């Protein structure tokens, strides 16, 4: 199950072990740290950081599409090399990319791809030492495709988020035809995710401060359900307050965004070159 096959840990956070409050708090803090880290790398001066967010969204989207389109491992390898090159040119340390993207995806997709080596039928190219299970040629190809695609696509997706302030990514979505209402909704959701994360963090920390000993499994389940219930009630109450505030400021059901991006020749060139990649893959017989 590809849960957890995320560049930033499962559901955007580094989860702690088990279902304890410590693990949950660790996860909540991890999600917020991830957001802060992404904002700081987006502020650096690098190749991708200086490009227009719309050009980046279209270009990197085209490269992700290329990753799924190609039927050749050599093309996949070239695309991965391009992702590494772009990361270096954007002053993203390989260690950070490895920690945030490559390692997590390798562990998850690798675990999924490994059985394919012996489960996919075909001529055996070697036998696993000790077990004697045959590793088939189609199995090896298949595992390489799965891992290669997952790693490369996750790298391009991470490049977008690590080199672009999140508010700019949202506005750039207008360029690919995402309705303005949806963009506004995404922006609000993104904002309130962190508010609710902070609320959840404070709630569970306050609870932990009042515990004399670690609770048992049943008590932890009750604690979590109560936490979810409180969070839902607060979310709905907050929705009412936010609605009143929006109406007070003149909201009548239409979302409007200020679009202050300027497309320069280099942005157009970057997006154009990236768009040529999937086109070349399709025209070149994939």
């Amino acid at each position: 199950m590809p849960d957890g096959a995320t560049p930033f840990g499962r559901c955007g956070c580094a989860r702690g072990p088990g279902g304890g409050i410590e693990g949950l708090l660790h996860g909540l803090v991890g999600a917020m740290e991830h957001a802060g880290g992404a904002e700081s790398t987006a502020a650096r001066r690098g190749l991708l950081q200086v490009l227009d967010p719309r050009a980046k969204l279209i270009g990197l989207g085209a490269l992700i599409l290329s990753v799924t389109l190609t039927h050749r491992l050599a093309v996949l390898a070239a695309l991965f090399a391009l992702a590494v090159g772009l990361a270096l040119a954007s002053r993203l340390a390989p260690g950070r990319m490895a920690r945030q993207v490559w390692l997590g995806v390798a562990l998850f997709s690798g675990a999924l791809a490994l059985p394919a080596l012996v489960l996919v039928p075909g001529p055996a190219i070697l036998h696993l030492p000790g077990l004697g299970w045959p590793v088939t040629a189609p199995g090896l190809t298949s595992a390489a495709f799965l891992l290669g695609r997952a790693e490369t696509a996750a790298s391009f997706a991470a490049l977008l988020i690590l080199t672009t302030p999140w508010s700019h990514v949202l506005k750039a979505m207008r360029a690919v035809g995402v309705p303005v209402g949806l963009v506004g909704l995404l922006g609000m959701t993104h904002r309130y995710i962190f508010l609710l994360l902070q609320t959840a963090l404070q709630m569970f920390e306050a609870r932990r401060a009042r515990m004399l000993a670690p609770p048992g499994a049943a008590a932890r389940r009750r604690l979590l359900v109560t936490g979810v219930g409180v969070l839902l009630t607060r979310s709905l109450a907050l929705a009412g307050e936010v609605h009143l505030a929006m109406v007070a400021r003149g909201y009548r059901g239409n979302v409007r965004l200020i679009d202050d991006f300027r497309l320069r020749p280099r942005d157009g060139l970057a997006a154009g070159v990236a768009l040529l990649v999937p086109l070349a893959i399709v025209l070149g017989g994939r």
Partner: protein
Amino acid sequence: MHIPDGYLSPATCAVTYAAALPFWIVASRRVGAMMQTTAVPLIALVSAFCFVVMMFNVPLPGGTSGHAVGMGIAAIVLGPWPAIAAISIALLVQAVFFGDGGLTTFGANSLNMAVVGALVAYAVYRLIAGNAALTSRRRVVAGAMAGYVAINVAALCAGVEFGLQPALFHDAAGAPLYAPYPLSVAVPAMLLGHLTFAGLAEALITGGLIAWLQASEPELLRRTAGLAVPWRRMRRFWLGLGVLMVASPLGLLAAGTAWGEWGAGAFADAAARQAMATASGNMAPPVAAPAGLARLAGLWTAPMPDYAPAFLHSAAFGYILSAMVGGGLILVVFGLVAMLAARRAA
């Protein structure tokens, strides 16, 4: 359950986007019409809530843990259409900003979790909860079952999407180009984890939340409580049902018998045998009716065989009468079940 980029072929991604699109359109219209200006902040907050809930690991019996998706909670508290919108938004934020689930596979993830998950959760909850009181224990069971069934059906959809890949997309040597496992491996592998850990976590969170809401905020359960529906709101349904009944003789226009619905006598009839062979890719049917079919065929004689009651000479009117009798019987059975359920809950 979040499918990353590269696991599904571009064609599968396109099909799943196309399948989810009508639901997104209807959800956006219904939510806008239902909530007017409150829709945007409400959906944003519930999407954020679903996102945060997905981070809560629930301790499960046996020392392990699992996390809920929140599809049951959203569908029960908000109703199916707002839930589709809220879960889709949460999935999009996860895909774009947190890399959880792919961008090309966003359509598939939304179809599995937001569309199928929310609709199944809502249907199961309404079916089991019936007209029970807001504070009835039956609603807790209904919530837990809704969460459990919804996450498993969503996992089944994901398993089918994975399992179709090797059969449809492979290179000349037979090596799968995307998810490598066939349906016989992908579906059980997906369901194993969801029938146990993930399903249990979803059931615990959804059922537990219903119990918590009953104790502290029961009004939040009223929106989808399924209490009596006014006659005027059902007018379109009855009109549609009537039109379909009157249109049922259109079935007479179809030539031949539906594939696989042949009677035991058809094997002895030359014209019917020819039709069976033509419909089966020119494969000749068995010389005689299979023994099991011949033995069981006479077990039950329908009062209105082939939708043509013996006492009627008009085939078209026979179809209409059959539609009315069949539809009426179904309504009566469901009415009795609902009545029994309501009496027990009272």
